[in-house]
């Protein structure tokens, strides 16, 4: 057990280190490029006051390393700075009283919305995909397997916005069952919220399920080919028990891995889908900020996405270590 704890501690440390370096990369990408950033952001027509306001806001007169430490220190305490759009606006109005909403305040509710969307997607996609994957593996090379293969390949190959519009077409426009716009606000009833989230969640489900199902299928087929499964069958064990008792304990690690990897994949999907459905999540904010070059918001969103991605991969890693009998029961 000790060695397992040691390995997990190592992985955790490695994950933290990666996150730290990623934060440097994100910061450096924005800050280490030549030229006057404030001027570039605001364009030639900007008033000198506006440029100056942005410059102080960014602290461009300070050393990059110091700026980074400040930014990281702030981020660790939940302070992600102020958005440019707000700073810019304030400087034009001439009211820089500091009452404007911070990036953290802007992101927090949207973060909750995105988590809700991801949660609904996962709740539909995971059981569905794993079941389909196991079925396809059990009845491999059957008509069912071939049909799902073609369907999932097509689904993987389609851009998220295509799937989104197809679903809108059939489920919102031609058959008005679900709303095509996800205008979510605070204090909404759960059922209504769920209804509005369903279409974006279904879109993401289509993408994620396809990936997850194919990977589950591959993992199970790989497993079923192992000699101990043949041995179990040659012991006259009934097929259900072979699956449950012999295949499943060993399939756990690969399946957990597949799920975590695909939840990580959701992060990318969320961005496009939120834009299509005008879902007020973090992805939409991210894209809007990219378009108006609101650097603090872009940095903050990027850091959150990267952190979620690293965390999910780390979880996959640790769970598969824990479920490995060789590590749980050392020699």
């Amino acid at each position, binding site marked *: 057990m000790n060695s397992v704890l040691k390995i997990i501690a190592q992985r955790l440390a490695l994950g933290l280190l990666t996150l730290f370096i990623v934060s440097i990369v994100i910061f450096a990408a924005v800050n280490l490029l030549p030229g006057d950033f404030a001027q570039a952001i605001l364009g030639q027509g900007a008033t000198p006051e506006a440029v100056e306001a942005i410059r102080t806001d960014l602290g461009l007169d300070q050393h990059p390393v110091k700026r980074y430490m400040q930014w990281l220190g702030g981020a660790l305490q939940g302070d992600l700075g102020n958005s440019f759009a707000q700073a810019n606006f304030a400087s034009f109005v001439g009211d820089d009283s500091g009452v404007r909403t911070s990036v953290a305040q802007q992101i927090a509710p949207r973060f909750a919305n995105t988590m809700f969307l991801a949660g609904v997607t996962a709740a539909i996609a995971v059981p569905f995909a794993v079941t389909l994957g196991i079925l396809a593996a059990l009845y491999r090379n059957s008509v069912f397997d071939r049909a799902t293969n073609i369907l999932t390949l097509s689904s993987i190959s389609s851009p998220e916005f295509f799937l989104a519009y197809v679903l809108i077409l059939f489920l919102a426009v031609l058959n008005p069952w679900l709303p095509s716009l996800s205008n979510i606000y605070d204090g909404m009833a759960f059922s209504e919220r769920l209804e509005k989230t369903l279409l974006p969640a279904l879109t993401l489900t289509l993408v994620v399920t396809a990936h997850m199902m194919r990977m589950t299928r591959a993992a199970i087929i790989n497993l079923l*080919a*192992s*000699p*101990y499964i*043949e*041995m*179990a*069958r*040659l*012991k*006259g*064990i*009934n097929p259900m*028990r072979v699956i449950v*008792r*012999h295949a499943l*304990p*060993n399939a756990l690690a690969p399946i957990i891995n597949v799920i975590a990897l695909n939840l990580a994949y959701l992060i990318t999907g969320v961005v496009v889908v939120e834009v299509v459905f005008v879902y007020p999540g973090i992805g939409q904010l991210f894209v809007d900020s990219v378009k108006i070059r609101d650097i603090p918001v872009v940095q903050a969103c990027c850091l959150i996405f990267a952190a979620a991605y690293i965390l999910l991969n780390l979880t996959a890693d640790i769970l598969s270590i824990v479920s490995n*009998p*060789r590590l749980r*029961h050392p*020699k």
Partner: protein
Amino acid sequence: MSNDAFKDAETLVEMKGIWMEGRSDEDWHPIINGVDLTLRKGEVLGLIGESGAGKSTLGLASMGFCRDGVRISKGSVMFDGIDLLAASSEEKRQLLGKRIAYVAQSAAASFNPAHRLIDQHTEAPIQHGVMSKDESEADGMELYRKLRLPNPDEIGFRYPHQVSGGQLQRAMTAMAMACRPDLIIFDEPTTALDVTTQIEVLASIREIVEEFDTAAIYITHDLAVVAQMADTIKVLLKGDEVEEAETREMLSHPTQDYTKSLWAVREFQRPQKPAVITGSTPVISVKNVTAAYGKIDVLHDVSFDIHEGRTVAVVGESGSGKSTTARCITGLLPPRIGSIELDGNPLPLDYRKRDRSQLQKIQMIYQMADTALNPRQTVGDIIGRPVEFYTGLTGKARRKRVEELMDQIELPASQFIDRLPSEMSGGQKQRVGIARSLAAEPEFIICDEVTSALDQLVAEGILRLLADLQDKLNLSYMFITHDLATVKSIADEVVVMKDGDVIEQGPKTEMFTPPHHAYTDLLLSSVPEMDPDWLTNLLKERGVDNIGDAAVGKIT
């Protein structure tokens, strides 16, 4: 144990006119062509043949089982009056594990890594309703004791990866015995084991099969092993039955040419060369070499000489350091302490620091011809590259030299020069590997287990070729092997290694006559011989506690 003893016994398995096919892409190609097989109660049938002969496929078919992509196209399989091919999968499931059991080649892969041994042992008895969990556990420990597993009361509570290969193989035999089946299929149960471990497993399998009077089909490619285990031997060749006879009869009077040739393999022996003149400079001299992977020393103070025109066989079991020594000589693993000398001059330890003529003089032939030849190059290119690289010949001159070399390895150039490795058999590929090393015109060749991946007849051809080449070209060989039969046939001198140490070294004739070092003695005595009484006599002579891992433990 004569075949007559079973004449009156009831027939247990009757396979008639079995034709089997395997699928590759969309086509079915034949694997077994009309083989009959009869097994009486309590009889042990040995199925032998080379790789691809269809032994395992036929063995599984006797259980009414086919792997994916294999099918029985014609014939019938009767087990104790039950037609296995017509039976429903439910009926078959009732037989498998309960009345017919299977012991697989790789126990490490065939035990489920997620469950303890005893839980896997008791699964079949509980599922088939033969015993309760407690009864079966107690019985399992009893069987472990009979099979002489260490700590029989405790070992079952371990997970497969916590138990050594030889012990796992015995635990698997115990598992097969759990329901006291009428028939057990042993599918090469000792092939993956070292000789000293193999003998223990063989002894325990034979004992327990005799004790419970179980019928068995014993599948192997090793004649000497099957001679110890079987009452009757059936020889297969490429899916056809060659002959079947009672073991002693088969060993003394094989009727078919193929069987005779199999027997003859073991008779190839080259005369030992005269002793080297004292004071002559050895071609290769390994001096006090200690080498390490990372921080752990894997070789300790190894020294030996290899003289012109001689073959030194380096013998030992897996992990003994034989291949590591070769890596030190070639410079892939620079020794931590010690030196390597070529013709009396010290070589740079790292191969990257050696000059072209030094590299040229030391060549290597590998165990797996598949990974030793670039699958995307033709034979002409594989052999031609060193010719061009070392001698600078190009164009026609290079081709002529390649043809000469192919002539030496007895592969007609006109037929083979443009082939890719995938278009040749294992033996042919190994010959190309030899030609590639000859192309460098070396003084010294390291042969790393060159015959162990090959079938016996093919292996013998390679050994004869190497011996001829040595005489013609005055080459020196370092022959790495775990197979003592190979040592007997080709070596002039022998170096015995164990755990990175040289245990004993000397001329072959001395090494094969007593007195030996205790480990050499164990190693020599563990090699099965063609005599069917060999195992019985050995056990009588040494006692069950002086063989295998138990004996190795006593030495160190």
